[in-house]
C-alpha cells in the first residue's frame, strides 16, 4: 500500500523532490512563460525589461561564521537577479518573527542586511513584519524579493556548445559544510560560509567576456545539482575533472565527518559560468580580479559524448555519473 503523500524535508532540499513539487504541483496550476522558464529569477516583458526574484530564508543557526540569516537574505536574492544578467536595484523584505525573539539579535541581523545592501548597491524599499506565537516559528524567518534591470538578455543553458569551459568562482561547499557543522555543535577551526553578493563580479564578467553562455549560483543541491539542471533533457553533457575541483581542506574534513559530498553542499557566494573555450583565460582573469572570485578555476567542459548527463573523471581514470541531489540530509542551511 502506497502511503498518502505529505511534505517531508526532502521537498525543500533543492534536489529531485523539489523539482517534482514544482513540476507536479506548481507549474500545472500557476505556469506562465515567465515562471515556466524556471530561471533563478523571472524575466518580465515591458519597456525596461525587468528581472524579478524571491527567496525565503529559514537557516538554523541564525548566526554562523561568515554570515547570518540577514546577510544571506540579501545576497541570495541579489545573486539570483545577477545570475539572470540583471542589475539588482530594489528589494522587499518580510520578517516572520517568533514571540520572545531577542531584540538584540534582530538589531544585529538588520545591521548585517544594511551592510550587504550597501555593498551590493541595492535598497530595501518595501517590507512586512508578522509575529507568530511562541512555538509556532523558529525565532526568525525572512523572505526577500528583488527587482533588477535586465542588462544582459539571453543567458541560458540552451546556449551551451561542445567544448565550452565550465568555470567556478572559488571553492565548493563552504556554506553547506559550515552550517551543517554548526548545527552538529562541532564547529571549530577555519570553516566559514562563503555568503557574499556576486552582482558586481557577475556584471563585470558579462561586460568583459561577451561570450558567456550561462551563469548560475550553485546554492542548495550544490555544484552537481546545478550542472545537471544545465544539461537535463539536452543533447549535451558536462564532464568534470575530479582533480580540478577546488575544496578547502577544512571543508573536505567536515564533509568526511558528516558523510557529505562537497559537490552537493550549498554555496552562497559562488557562481558557475559556462564560457566558450577560447574565452576561458579571459573569464578566469576577470573573476580572479574580484575578492569573491580569487580562487576561480576551470573544472570541466561541455561535451557531446554524454547527452543529458554530468559525468566526472576520477583520479583513477574512470568516469562516473553525477546525479542531482537525491534527498540527502539537508537540514535548514539557507
Amino acid at each position, binding site marked *: 500500500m502506497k502511503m498518502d503523500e505529505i511534505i*517531508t524535508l*526532502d521537498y525543500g532540499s533543492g534536489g529531485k523532490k523539489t523539482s517534482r513539487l514544482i513540476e507536479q504541483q506548481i507549474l500545472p496550476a500557476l505556469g506562465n512563460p515567465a515562471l515556466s522558464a524556471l530561471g533563478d529569477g523571472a524575466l518580465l516583458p515591458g519597456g525596461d525589461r525587468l528581472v524579478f526574484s524571491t527567496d525565503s530564508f529559514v537557516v538554523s543557526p541564525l548566526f554562523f561564521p561568515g554570515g547570518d540569516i540577514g546577510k544571506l537574505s540579501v545576497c541570495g536574492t541579489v545573486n539570483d537577479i545577477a545570475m539572470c544578467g540583471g542589475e539588482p536595484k530594489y528589494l522587499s523584505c518580510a520578517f516572520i518573527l517568533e514571540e520572545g525573539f531577542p531584540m538584540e539579535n534582530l538589531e544585529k541581523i538588520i545591521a548585517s542586511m544594511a551592510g550587504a545592501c550597501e555593498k551590493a548597491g541595492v535598497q530595501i524599499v518595501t517590507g512586512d513584519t508578522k509575529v507568530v506565537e511562541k512555538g509556532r516559528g523558529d525565532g526568525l524567518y525572512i523572505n526577500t524579493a528583488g527587482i533588477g534591470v535586465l542588462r544582459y538578455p539571453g543567458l541560458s543553458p540552451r546556449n551551451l556548445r561542445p567544448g565550452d569551459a565550465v568555470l567556478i568562482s572559488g571553492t565548493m561547499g563552504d556554506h553547506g559544510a559550515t552550517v551543517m557543522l554548526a548545527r552538529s555543535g562541532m564547529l571549530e577551526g577555519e570553516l566559514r560560509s562563503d555568503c557574499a553578493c556576486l552582482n558586481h563580479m557577475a556584471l563585470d564578467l558579462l561586460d568583459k567576456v561577451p561570450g558567456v553562455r550561462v551563469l548560475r549560483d550553485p546554492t542548495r543541491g550544490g555544484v552537481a545539482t546545478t550542472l545537471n539542471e544545465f544539461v537535463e533533457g539536452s543533447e549535451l553533457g558536462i564532464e568534470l575533472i575530479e582533480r580540478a575541483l577546488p575544496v578547502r581542506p577544512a571543508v573536505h574534513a567536515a564533509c568526511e565527518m558528516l558523510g557529505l559530498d562537497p559537490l552537493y553542499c550549498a554555496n552562497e557566494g559562488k557562481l558557475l559560468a559556462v564560457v566558450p573555450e577560447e574565452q576561458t583565460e579571459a573569464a578566469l582573469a576577470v573573476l580572479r580580479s574580484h575578492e569573491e572570485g580569487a580562487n576561480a578555476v576551470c573544472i570541466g567542459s561541455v561535451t557531446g559524448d554524454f547527452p543529458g548527463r554530468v559525468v566526472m573523471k576520477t583520479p583513477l581514470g*574512470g568516469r562516473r555519473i553525477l546525479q542531482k541531489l537525491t534527498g540527502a540530509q539537508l537540514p535548514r542551511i539557507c
Partner: protein
Amino acid sequence: MPSAETLIAAIRELRPEPVKLMEVCGTHTHAIARSGIKSVLPEGVELLSGPGCPVCVTPTEVIDQILSLSMEPGVIIASYGDMLRVPGSRPGDSLQRRRALGARVEIVYSPMDAIEIAKQNPAKEVVFLGVGFETTAPGTAIAALTAAEQGVRNFTVWSLLKRVEPALRALLRSENFQVKGFLCPGHVATIIGAEGFRYLPEEYGMPAVISGFEPEDILLAVYHLLRQLKEGSPRVENDYPRAVSAKGNLLAQGIMARCLAPRTDLWRGLGEIPDSGLGLRPQLREQDAQVRFGLERLPAPKPTACRCGEVITGRLRPADCPLFGKRCTPEDPVGPCMVSSEGACSAAYLYRPASP
C-alpha cells in the same frame, strides 16, 4: 604508499584468476564505487559487498518497531541521520515521514548528544538508536554508563549493535558462498585488532587483509589478497597499521565487555545468528529501551519483495535487483541498501560508471 597507477599495474602483473572478493564495510563499498576501482581491476576480479552497512542489516520488523515507538506520546527518538529514511514494511513509511506526522525525531552525531537532549527535556523519554558494529559499540556503551552514573533516568539506549564475526561465519557456512578473500573493515579492526580476524585464514582458509579507506589503500589490499591467493598462503595482513594494532583498542574492549553482552540477533538476509548482537548487560537495565518499553525480540523475519538481504550477502549485485533504479531510488527507497549512506545499492546508484 605507492601511487594508484603503480598499484593497478602490480595487480595486473599478478595475472589473477577470476575471483570474487568481499568487502564488509559500507565505507569501503562507497569508496570503491566513488573512485571507480571496479573499472580498473583485471577482468574477472570482482568486489562484492558484504554485510557491512549497519543500517542495512537491521531487519524490516525492527524498523517497524522503531516507527511504532516513535509515535508513543512523550518519546523522542535520537538517531544517526542514516536511519531516518530507512523504510519500514509499508512503502514510504520511515522515521522521516513519522517526523512529518508529528513524531519527535532528533538527528545526533554521537550518543552523548542524545544524553544532552534528555537533560534538556526531563519530561520526555529519549531513546537513542544504537546502530552499528564494534566501531560504535564502545561509544554507545559509554553513553548508557554515563546516563546510569549521572542518573539521567529519561535516557535509554535501544541496542541494535551487531558483531561482524558471527555474521561472517554464518556467510562462510552458507551454501554456494563463492567469495575467496575478505577486505576487512579498518574501523572495526581499530577496536578488535588485527588478531580479531585470525579465524578467517585459520578456520576457513580465507585470505584477510585489513584496509584503510583511500583508493590507494583499497588497491593495496586487493593486491595483497590476490597475492595471498596466488601463493596459497592465507593469513591476516594489516594494511592499515597507521590505525590498527594487533590487539586493538583494549580500553574500548574493556568498556564493551563491562556493559554489553553477546546475544542472538536477527539480521536482514542472514536471519537469526547466535551471539551476533550486543545487548546491554542486566546492570544497565534501567538504561535499556527494550526493557523500559517492553520491546520484545522478534521471531525470524518473513520474506519480503525487497532483495536487500541478498545484496548484503553478496548473492545479488545491486543492479541485478529488479527494483534497482526503478521502483527503488534514493528518494523513494524500498530497501535500506538504497538509502543508507553506506548501502551497496546507494553506492551503485550514486556512483554509476559512465561510458560515452
